[in-house]
């Protein structure tokens, strides 16, 4: 049902420190990324938007220990929300291991639990968005500039959400996350064609697409879409791009410096595969 094997595009070949990662951490991060991508696909991909069944329904990705990602569909508009109920269908993963591997494109048990007559619509909508999210992130050949822009948008969305989740739950990088000052990091291309942000407010890290909700304290900027794509897919060494000035960091730079180990950790989490 889920086709998110694209998630290993980050830092391909990255050595995963299995001892410091748990299936729970991976499940939490990957499920957050899947939810954020589903919303982003609905917002930015017209073809997918049109495939989403009309009506009001919701999907809950549910794992152990109360882990839930709640997607609300309202006539094609998709929002991720705090859990507001049972939903039309619950996609239940019996274990974090199942959730982590299944959301990474591997095998794992997933039990759909229909809860309303619209459950089929809900399942279909989620299938459409999550699959498309995977396709867009994995795409490396572009017929148009818009395709390139869209893929960068998806990758940035996934990375920023992944970093936000990692910062809140990964004990290995907890001290790094704690050292990041409060505020907003804007991530964007130079011309603003793709923008995203990461915000820290107390213990909560959040992320989003587009312009930051308030003036950013720091900015990580790619000279163009190809640089952003190269950095997010690991085909362009970020350090070299930084040295060349093709990636710039400005403002409260320590916030961005605190981001780097989290991005690397996110790459490890995405590459994690307990089956291998």
């Amino acid at each position, binding site marked *: 049902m889920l086709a998110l094997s694209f998630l290993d595009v980050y830092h391909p070949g990255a050595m995963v420190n299995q001892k*410091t990662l748990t299936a729970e951490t991976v499940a939490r991060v990957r499920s957050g990324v899947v939810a954020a991508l589903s919303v982003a696909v609905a917002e930015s991909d017209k073809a997918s938007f049109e495939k989403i069944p009309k009506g009001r329904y919701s999907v809950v990705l549910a794992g152990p220990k109360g882990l839930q990602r709640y997607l609300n569909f309202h006539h094609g508009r998709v929002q991720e929300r705090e859990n507001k109920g049972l939903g039309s269908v619950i996609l239940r993963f019996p274990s974090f291991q199942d959730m982590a591997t299944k959301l990474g494109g591997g095998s794992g048990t997933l039990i759909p639990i229909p809860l309303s007559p619209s459950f089929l619509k809900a399942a279909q909508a989620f299938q459409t968005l999550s699959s498309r999210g995977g396709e867009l992130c994995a795409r490396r050949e572009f017929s148009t500039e818009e395709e390139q822009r869209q893929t960068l948008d998806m990758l940035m969305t996934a990375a920023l959400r992944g970093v936000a989740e990692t910062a809140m739950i990964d004990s290995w990088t907890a001290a790094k996350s704690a050292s990041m000052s409060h505020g907003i990091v804007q991530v964007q291309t130079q011309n603003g064609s793709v923008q995203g942000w990461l915000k820290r407010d107390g213990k909560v890290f959040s992320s989003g697409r587009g312009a930051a909700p308030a003036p950013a*304290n720091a900015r990580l900027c790619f*000279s163009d879409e190809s640089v952003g794509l190269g950095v997010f897919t690991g085909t362009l060494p970020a350090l070299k791009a930084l040295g060349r*000035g093709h990636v*710039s960091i*400005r*403002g409260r730079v320590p916030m961005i410096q605190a981001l780097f180990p989290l991005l690397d950790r996110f790459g490890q989490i995405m590459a994690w595969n307990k089956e291998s």
Partner: protein
Amino acid sequence: MTTTPRYALSQDLFDRAASVIPGGIYGSKSPGFSVPGRFPYYFTEGSGCRIKDADGHEYIDYLCGFGSMILGFGNPIVDDPAIEQLRKGDLLNQPGPAMVELAERLTALIDGMDWAVFAKNGTDATTLAVSLSRVHTGKPYVLMAQGAYHGSANWCSSNAYPVLRDKDEVRLFPYGDVAALQALFDELRGQVAAVILTPYHHATWAPQQMPPAGWHEAVRRLCDEESAFFIMDDIRANFRLNLHGSHRAMGAKPDFVCMGKSLANGYPIGALMGTEELKKTASNFFITGTFWTSTVPYVASLACLNEMERLDVVSHVQAMGARLKQGLIKAGMEAGYNISCTGPDAIPFMTFDDDADMWHNQEFSAQMATRGVYLHPHHNWFLSYAHKESDIDETLEKAAESFQEVKKAFQGEF
């Protein structure tokens, strides 16, 4: 995005470095600490207060080897005897006579200090001071100010992972906050080995902060009440505030003084000095490093100390720093900016008011670099004896131009 071919060779070198050196250039010298794409990454030579980058551009330098070059680059008074010793031999199995001479010189020079041991970097000295404090008191905790830099060792650096336990018994307090420090002593009653402080607070990424009235006295009192030691990390301010130690300038009475940087005008040597009470503990503690007894730095240090005393370097660097600060404030105001120049005159740092995130600092420093002046955007600056009035005035002319460029860059944004 503004990048420039001006630094092409620096960037080529960094590109190669990134393939074989983790981080390319690590720590506080990494491009990410400056303005990547708009700053030189590699330097090839220096003379007086001027340095030349890998692309051949010359700069009036205000970083001075992160404070080390107090007499300026290539100073013959220091270099000539050092080179002579180098030819005779540097690492000679056992220490040379210069090690004894330097210890005698420093114990006579530095207020309240009765012995000296030597190492290479400031981190060696601060880490040794912390270890000796713990061993002597039998207590584990060390208290340090938030944002303070005491070296790259894990106990005090940003390296923090669950398997690194070095920070477990290090606690932080806001600089200058007596009540907060008292609260930590209360919480950790009977467990505090030492408080480590710099003479004033020179946290990176922030304006510098002079000690509030009574601060050092309060630290001394709290340490005495709790039988803890007061470690003065004088590495960065070393010899720019007072030749007898920055603690004299600040009215502080520490048990340890950590020194390095300008101790030998760029030659690699650090020192830990302490009071008589701590001498036995230090002598029973295993202290060594293969290169810690290399003779050349000791010879250089003796020459440097003599020259600093002869020239009254402290007065000079303070006067040059004051001229720079006043000129920058004036140039900033003329461009419509309120700027602050914080810290001692000899170790100033400029920030734009109402820009805590330092966007303006970064643009200003990049503009200055383009004009041949090396002013770090995030780290405090240093004056040396080699800076003369003409260098300061040239800097100020370029600052006036750079402020105008900053205005253009941020038009409508701030």
